[in-house]
């Protein structure tokens, strides 16, 4: 080895130039992304101003449409008297337990089903059938089993979130780049090593996609579950306020849920982007 350690050449200038030009391309697209965000913010502001004006000039009835200023005022009142905190806590807890259980069970089970085709053969009919069924249709059953309290919502959140996580993890483990498999085999990989060094890492991008999709399903579970039968929670708040034509309050509930959904989804999208490079590059 000793005589090998001396370098026989540095990367060609051409290659270094390519690297440099790639990084300027990256900074240019960074500004383009900024421009994108700026335009988005601008259009949002124009929309809100138009909405406010429509109510202020009496073009529409605020009983139906509410308005940005009314929503803000109602939100301040709700947070000031503290009643909404209970709803946020209850919904948050349902999400945390239900989604948490879906991740803790869905990811390992998905990995196992992706790797062991026999296990997949046994469980696939259940997974496929339940994945195709709108889980909301199970609500009446879930209510019968778990009652009106928090557990029925935890169950429906769990059922909503676990299938996208499961299905994406299975696909992730299974769709391994054939070139990587060949490399591993050529280097004398055992089945176990193939799993640990190739299948598992290449499943990460799709696994994260599953986690992100799971969030959306979990939020649907919370809202619909609480609307169907509950004593607290944001979905419950939206349902009861809606029944009383308290449009402003309905809007506050919607916005809180939407904000939570956007925040969590974006966070996962950021993580996904970090792992995007784990997806095999296409072409040279």
């Amino acid at each position, binding site marked *: 080895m000793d005589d090998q350690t001396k370098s026989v050449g540095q*990367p*060609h200038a051409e290659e270094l130039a390519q690297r440099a030009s790639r990084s300027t391309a990256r900074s240019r697209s960074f500004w383009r992304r900024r421009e994108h965000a700026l335009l988005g913010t601008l259009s949002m502001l124009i929309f809100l101003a138009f909405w406010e004006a429509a109510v202020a000039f009496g073009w529409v009835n605020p009983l139906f449409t509410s308005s940005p200023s009314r929503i803000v005022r109602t939100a301040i009142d709700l947070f000031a008297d503290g009643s909404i905190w209970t709803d946020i806590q209850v919904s948050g807890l349902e999400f945390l337990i239900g989604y948490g259980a879906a991740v803790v069970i869905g990811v390992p089970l998905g990995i196992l089903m992706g790797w062991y085709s026999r296990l997949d053969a046994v469980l696939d009919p259940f997974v496929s059938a339940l994945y195709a069924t709108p889980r909301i249709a199970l609500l009446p059953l879930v209510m019968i089993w778990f009652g009106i309290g928090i557990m029925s919502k935890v169950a429906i959140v769990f059922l909503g979130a676990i299938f996208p996580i499961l299905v994406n993890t299975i696909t992730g483990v299974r769709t391994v780049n054939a070139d990587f498999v060949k490399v591993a085999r050529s280097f*004398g990989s055992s089945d176990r*090593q193939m799993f640990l060094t190739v299948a598992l890492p290449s499943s990460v991008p799709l696994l994260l996609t599953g986690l992100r999709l799971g969030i959306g399903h979990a939020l649907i579970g919370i809202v619909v579950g609480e609307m169907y039968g509950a004593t607290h929670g944001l979905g419950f708040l939206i349902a009861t306020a809606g029944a009383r034509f308290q449009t402003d309050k309905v809007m506050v509930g919607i916005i809180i849920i939407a904000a939570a959904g956007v925040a969590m989804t974006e966070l996962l999208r950021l993580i996904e982007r970090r792992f995007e*490079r784990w997806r095999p*590059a296409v*072409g040279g």
Partner: protein
Amino acid sequence: MMEVARPAKLDVRRVSLELYNERTDQSLAVLRDIDLQVRAGELVSVVGPSGCGKSTFLNAVDGLIAVTAGQIMVDGHAVTGPGPDRAMVFQHDSLFPWRTVSENVMYGLDLQGKLRKAERRERARALVELVGLSGFAEHYPHELSGGMRQRVNIARALVMEPQLLLLDEPFAALDAQTREFMQVELLKILARAKTTALFVTHQINEAVFLSDRVVVLSARPAAIKAVIDVELPGERALALKHTPRFLELEQRIWRLIEQEAERTGMLTVA
């Protein structure tokens, strides 16, 4: 032990290979009666008409595909599967995107698990230096150019200190310029690593430039049509490619391949 005449590094004896296609339920004869000996330290290239089975032959030598008849021996041992005496440089660099350059180079050693982590790290470092990527050991593949990735691909195979290095069109995905420079680099790297190599390419020019001998395969099922000794004076530098001797060799090999293409109707003359 008595010192007998050393057997060839690679000894391919009457190898035939058929691939079974499950969909059509038919077997396709890919290789027919291949006989080839590669001596220690030699670089032998394999060329032939497109789709003739060059890569399949290389995969068989690596042990990734089983031969139907005959035997492949490396250092006197029959090939029954992938082994540490051979290492492959793949056509697509196929670097693991989740491993840094040095972790990619370490991959084979990690699988073997024979060396301690620190030793593996040290061997990877030496190889990364050998292929001229010292400053990039902690970079990820996506941060490298195509040429740099192929250097990592070569280092990943060489770190195993294989008796026989197999290269499957390693420069096919590179642009023409980078490709020429990488050819020179490869010769330097192999001279330092003192490795015997079997090189598959479809570029005749590349084969002549790199090799001690060029094996020309016939159209499928591939048999050996000719083995050309490349006797070129002096050091292999890119200028060599413009010498009459070089061009003459290139012409000769090209005519052989052309004959094959014509024979099988791949080439229609207007």
